[in-house]
């Protein structure tokens, strides 16, 4: 068995995450809203990896748990308090209950039938949130805060303003430190640090699961379920436990999305969201610890940066090209940016799956090996 240095990995990971506002500054991604999304989708992907990466059960339905988490959190904001703690707890609990029910039914089958069942459940949840469950979900408009919500634990906010989410008085949106560093204007806000701490906690939990006998059984399920059954292990409770754990991670992510912006819409439950997390995990490195987070950051970065590039920006970039070549290059690049950024994502995904089946983590390992070889040759 390989020797792991988990303490060091965790420490390095925590430092990188906590310093993200500084480290990401040169990439243009260091604004609180995007960094918070990195952390939240990182949590979503970590949880999903426990199911898909370890047991090999591919679920397309995890968007439903994300949505359930968001709705639960917003209801807590409406009824109880704007403090995020009860909201996050209810989000995780509700997502856990939902995943227990959906998992119990879907896990009666494996392989493609399991995937289709989860997909069906996710679409069903989405459509129900849109239509018949309107009293709970507020249908098309989405569930929002209102001035006349009870919020029984909170003091009444000033006339005519909606209260904002907080952690015992610390407002999520508030930027508490705004220094200038090497010419970059840095923003440190509470919202990101709440998500970041939960991301580190999720990473730690995932790490413990990976190294535990429980995690070993999950990997055994992926490798040879028949042998496992004839070895005296009942695989169904294991897969169900993994399903519920990953559903709870998704619920936590959904709840955190609601703390960023206390609003929950049905589109969060759509299957494309569940498909996106599959892309994140595969792109980053299936079954690895850091891969899913890397994938989540990568995809959310592309989404936010590439989709903001429009024709004018492109013309600015290629203005140095003479005459018609400028228009030509712009015309070629244009479909890959702006609204067409999915095309870039698709192309990158294909390249990774075909040439780097281990994902970005595998890629970085190979690059590391290459450098070491070069260093050795020169030495």
């Amino acid at each position: 068995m390989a020797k792991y240095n988990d303490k060091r990995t965790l420490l390095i990971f925590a430092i990188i995450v906590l310093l993200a506002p500084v480290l990401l500054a040169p990439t243009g991604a260091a604004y609180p809203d995007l960094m918070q999304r990195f952390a939240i989708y990182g949590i979503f992907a970590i949880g999903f990896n426990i199911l898909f990466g370890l047991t090999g059960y591919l679920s397309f339905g995890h968007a439903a748990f994300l949505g359930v988490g968001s709705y639960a959190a917003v209801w807590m904001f409406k009824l109880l308090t704007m403090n995020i703690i009860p909201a996050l707890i209810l989000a995780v609990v509700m997502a856990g209950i939902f995943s227990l029910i959906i998992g119990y039914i879907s896990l009666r089958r494996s392989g493609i039938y399991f995937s289709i069942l989860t997909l069906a459940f996710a679409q069903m949840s989405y459509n129900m949130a849109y239509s018949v469950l309107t009293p709970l979900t507020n249908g098309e408009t989405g569930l929002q805060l209102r001035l006349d919500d009870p919020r029984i634990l909170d003091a009444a906010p000033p006339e005519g303003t909606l209260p904002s989410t907080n952690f015992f008085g610390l407002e999520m949106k508030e930027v508490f430190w705004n220094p200038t560093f090497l010419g970059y204007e840095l923003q440190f806000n509470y919202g990101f640090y709440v998500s970041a701490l939960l991301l580190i906690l999720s990473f730690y939990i995932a790490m413990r699961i990976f190294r535990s006998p429980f995690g070993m059984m999950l990997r055994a399920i992926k490798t040879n379920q028949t042998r496992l059954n004839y070895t005296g292990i009942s695989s169904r409770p294991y897969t169900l436990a993994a399903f519920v754990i990953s559903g709870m991670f998704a619920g936590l992510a959904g709840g955190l999305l609601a703390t960023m912006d206390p609003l929950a819409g049905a589109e969060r439950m759509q299957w494309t969201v569940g498909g996106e997390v599959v892309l994140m995990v595969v792109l980053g490195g299936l079954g690895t610890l850091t891969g899913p987070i890397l994938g989540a950051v990568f995809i959310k970065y592309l989404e936010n940066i590439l989709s903001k590039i429009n024709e004018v920006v492109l013309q600015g970039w290629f203005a140095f090209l003479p005459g018609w070549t400028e228009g030509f290059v712009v015309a070629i690049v244009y479909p890959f940016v702006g609204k067409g950024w999915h095309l870039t994502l698709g192309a990158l995904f294909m390249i990774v799956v075909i040439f780097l089946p281990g994902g970005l983590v595998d890629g970085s390992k190979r690059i590391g090996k290459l450098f070491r070889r070069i260093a050795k040759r020169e030495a």
Partner: protein
Amino acid sequence: MGILEVSNVNKHFGGLHALNNVDLNIDKGSLHAIIGPNGAGKSTFLNCLIGKLKPDTGSVLFEGQAVLGKKPHQINQLGISRVFQTPEIFTEMTVLENVMIPCYAHRDGAFKINAFARVSKDSEIRDQAEHVLNDMGMNGKLNMRGGALSRGDKRRLEMAMCLVQEPKLLLLDEPTAGMARADTNDTINLLKHISESRGITMVIIEHDMHVVFSLATTISVLAQGAIIAEDTPENIKGHPKVREAYLGEAEV
């Protein structure tokens, strides 16, 4: 009284009567071989014992407990382990991990959420696994991936996975199928060694007469779904019915 008592087992596949009133008594500590021509129902019989198939009628008692209708993992937890015709191992995991899993199954039962325990700190399980692998002569290969082993080593590994659970009954489905003579002899010695050193009752299904006659203490002959003879190897060799049904003109 035997450790395994099979009485009156019948199994139909459509119009085919695959098992016809099979009665079998397996004595504790014996090495019982079941032989028979292709299609005689040997594998069907074994599958009925481990819960893969459910017979139409009949009963199977293991140490007085009913086995039929139980799930494979429940049957294993009773103390019955099985070696498959093609070794079933965890190909994507290391040899040591392969053996640690049955260790956990033996100690912790069919399901336990021990998500915060550390595998690397569980020296009890690790020692058990290493001890059995040592016995099987695989101590140099602990960190190899299961799938990278040679066929003979896969067989040894599978055997180690069964033995580490200290089963009361070990079922072997053609353990030497597709092996070269040298490997076959290795396997025979291995099985003899296991049987003598651990006193585990074994039921072995085999095609190769060389293996059967060098190992078995009792032989049952299955033909067209029915047991036509049960005796010691010496007597089976000369049994007229067996010669007719199975051995034919072949010299043994």
